[in-house]
């Protein structure tokens, strides 16, 4: 194939890409520093701690990235506000729109169709702009930040929190924070990685979240409904963009692979440790 023949469409503007960059940086740091403490008895945890200097450095990084997390959490509402204003719809219309991030009935339908497709009982669904698993990933961050963030604050400021809550709630907060984080990182580093990057169609990674652009061909195959809607609305030309510069494409891959490698290494360490700890 000759390069000029490949057409690219814009999927993400700079703002959501920046937010996801913040998510990657903060989430990886939080996961590595947090898991090192959770699995402190493991040798890899001590390796991490001594690499950074001490557990106190890990703690400081963890708290700093917590601030970053709260920041992107807030910025996400800014993004949503902007999108809402751009759409010119009422709040409810915006939320219930088919391209909204909020799961709807169609997602349940597509989920069922997907399972049928898995078993060869039907064609792959005509996915739109957001698939149900993408919506789950997005919503999971809301849940995660809320749960892990709030308990994390309690652990960060136990002396202030216990002016209101009983001391043993700090213990409960620890369990919630730690096991919810285990769920979150376990999910991101396996399910999200597979769904988005590692499955055969995307392997080894999908750089769209960094470059913001995807080949038009891919849009036609992966998201036929969105493609069809764009064509029907005559808006396809609007989203056609020049290809991402070569250097940015390379940088995106280096960064993406690094993040993938860190995440996969961590999840392997965690799984190994859990097996080891439970066997022990």
């Amino acid at each position, binding site marked *: 194939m000759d390069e000029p023949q490949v057409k690219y469409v814009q999927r993400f503007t700079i703002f959501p890409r920046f937010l996801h960059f913040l998510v990657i940086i903060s989430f990886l740091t939080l996961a590595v520093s947090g898991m090192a403490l959770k699995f402190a008895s493991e040798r890899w945890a001590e390796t991490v701690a001594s690499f950074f200097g001490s557990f106190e450095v890990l703690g400081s990084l963890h708290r700093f990235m917590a601030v970053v997390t709260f920041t992107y959490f807030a910025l996400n509402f800014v993004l949503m506000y902007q999108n809402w204003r751009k759409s010119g719809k009422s709040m409810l219309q915006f939320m219930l729109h088919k391209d909204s991030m909020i799961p709807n009935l169609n997602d349940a339908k597509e989920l069922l169709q997907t399972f049928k497709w898995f078993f060869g009982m039907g064609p792959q669904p005509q996915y739109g702009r957001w698939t149900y698993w993408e919506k789950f990933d997005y919503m999971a961050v809301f849940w995660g930040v809320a749960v892990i963030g709030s308990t994390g604050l309690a652990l960060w400021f136990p002396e*202030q929190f216990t002016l209101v809550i009983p*001391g*043993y709630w700090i*213990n409960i907060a620890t369990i*919630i924070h730690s*096991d919810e984080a*285990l769920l979150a990182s376990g999910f991101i580093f396996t*399910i999200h990685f597979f769904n988005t990057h590692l499955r*055969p169609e995307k392997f080894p990674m999908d750089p769209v979240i960094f470059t913001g652009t995807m080949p038009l061909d891919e849009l036609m195959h992966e998201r036929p409904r969105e493609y069809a809607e764009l064509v029907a609305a005559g808006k396809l030309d609007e989203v056609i963009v020049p290809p991402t510069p070569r250097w940015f494409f390379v940088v995106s891959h280096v960064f993406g692979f690094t993040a993938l490698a860190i995440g996969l290494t961590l999840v392997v360490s965690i799984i190994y440790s859990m097996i080891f700890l439970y066997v022990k």
Partner: protein
Amino acid sequence: MLKVTEKQDWMKLLLIIFALLLAVQVQNAAAMTDEDCLDCHTDPDLTVEVDGKTVQLNVDGDKYMGSVHADNSCVSCHEEADVDEAPHPYPMARVDCANCHDDIAEIFANSLHGQALEKNDPYAPKCIDCHGKHDIVSLQDKNSPTYILNVPFTCGRCHQEGSPMTLTHDIPKKNILKNFSMSIHGEGLYRKGLTVTAVCTSCHTAHNVLPHTDPNSTISRLNVVKTCMKCHANIEEAHTKIVRGELWETEPHKVPACVECHGPHQARRVLYEDSLNDLFCLKCHGNPDLKLIMANGEEKSLFVNVEDFEHSIHKEKRIACAKCHVNVDHQKNPVCRDSGKVDCSICHAQVVDLYNKSTHGMLSAKDDKNAPLCSDCHGTHGIMSKSNSESPIFARNIPELCGSCHREGEKAALRYTGTQHDIIKHYQMSIHGRGLSQSGLMVSASCTNCHTAHSMLPSSNPESSVNRNNIIEACAQCHLGIAEKFSSSIHSPSVSKTDKKLPVCNDCHTSHTISRHDTAGFRGLILDECGTCHEHETDSYFETYHGKASMLSGGEKTAKCSDCHGSHDILPAYYSESNLNRRHVVETCKKCHPGSNRKFTGYLTHATHHDRDKYPYLYYTFWGITGLLVGTFAFFGIHTLFWMPRSFRERFKKRREHSRENILKKDDDWS
């Protein structure tokens, strides 16, 4: 008949009585009475020429009548004068006191004085030279020359320095009388008027004076102790600290004789220098080439470096060679032949007694070649006080000294089977070792502070200073304050009445690797130490933030057992003095968490979510979250598992279609 007989007997009796009376009268009439003698011998003009000298023959009648011999009459001694009529024959033989005092005369004859007399030594004393002639009084009489107070004068007539006798005779001791008068005995006699103090005759005897080289002499090395003990009967009791007292009676050859420390004639409580013998010894032993060829052909140097000895504590205390090398004998040549090993117990009885009960001593008793002897630690001739920084037993040098056997690879370490290894190396790195050798802090404990210098025993021995039951006492020598605190803690047997093993100092602090309690190494160890008994508590601690962080780099900073529970003063929370008691717990947490408050202290520092009964909230929270986790993963796990094969199948199908299209394309191209 009967009457006549009675009359004859009575007459017979009368006759006998008469005859006896007559006989006495006749004798009286024939003998010289004392009055007869004194008739002539009170005349001052009664003189006689002997070898051109005029000798007075008068006798002081009054003195004679007051003498002990007054009742004996002149002629009982001067037998030849017993004639019927004066004058008696002249010259007469000398009075021989042995006529009556035969036992004493016999003793005297064998004595130094008697032998001299036999050899016609002009200075040899005769009986009268000491006792007088006609004026002999009881030795209880203050006027008697043999009265105790007068004895030194009587002897001094000949033995005074400068007298003709001393000028013509070789008497080994000089200034005898002067020295005696300054000795404790002389002082007692002259200044205190004590009639029980020793005078010349008390030690030398009155009549049996013999040289000290004579084994029969009361002042010979063998007998002098017995002689002194005539008065100083229980002196061994007073000397047990210095001399194993009973040796004086049982094995006197092993101990220094009294006079070796308390010079004869100069006896005082202080010891007098007696260096004469040293010079004698050094005549031979000062020669660097002096060697002994042993039975197995080996050579052994017998050289004694006098320089070493000059700086030794024994020199300072004026201990002569022969006081340690006691088996010297004048009969032998040389005098020190086969004198054998020095027995330090002669003087250092108590210490050697302790040593004998120690591992070192017990090995030595078995003739173990590795057993350290006194000299191995203290040296021989150059023995120095432990306060001398040059001494091998100076505190700072002790680790090196003990290390010469106990360092890894050395003989004591090789035969050691216990768990302590690299003892010396560890000690040198420990707070005690660094205090002593790096900071020069002389109060830092060295080997002997804990193990003692002479009673070292393995810790398993109940007598050992480092035995579990004694170690607190050993540490308390320096760390008294801590020991006192500890004694009121729950770990003290006085508080906890239990059969369980209670911890002692070295359980937590170790023995040879003791470090400051605030070092990372020690803080890391606390958890292990407490965990050996409080396993469950340590396990649950490791499930909390404090415990987890403590396992990571820099983790020594997080709260360890002792930070909350206290260390030496540790008590369960139900004691009001406990750090964890309701009254103190907020303050305890405040040490690290300045904002600590009552509710804050409700944090469960030993919480585990595995105990449903104890911590139900934690248990259910954990399982709630875990359920969520398992549910999520189960759903998406299945989702992924099914997606994967389908994806692969789709890709293969596409590839096949793609290649078929290509083939068709090619076919088109061909056509």
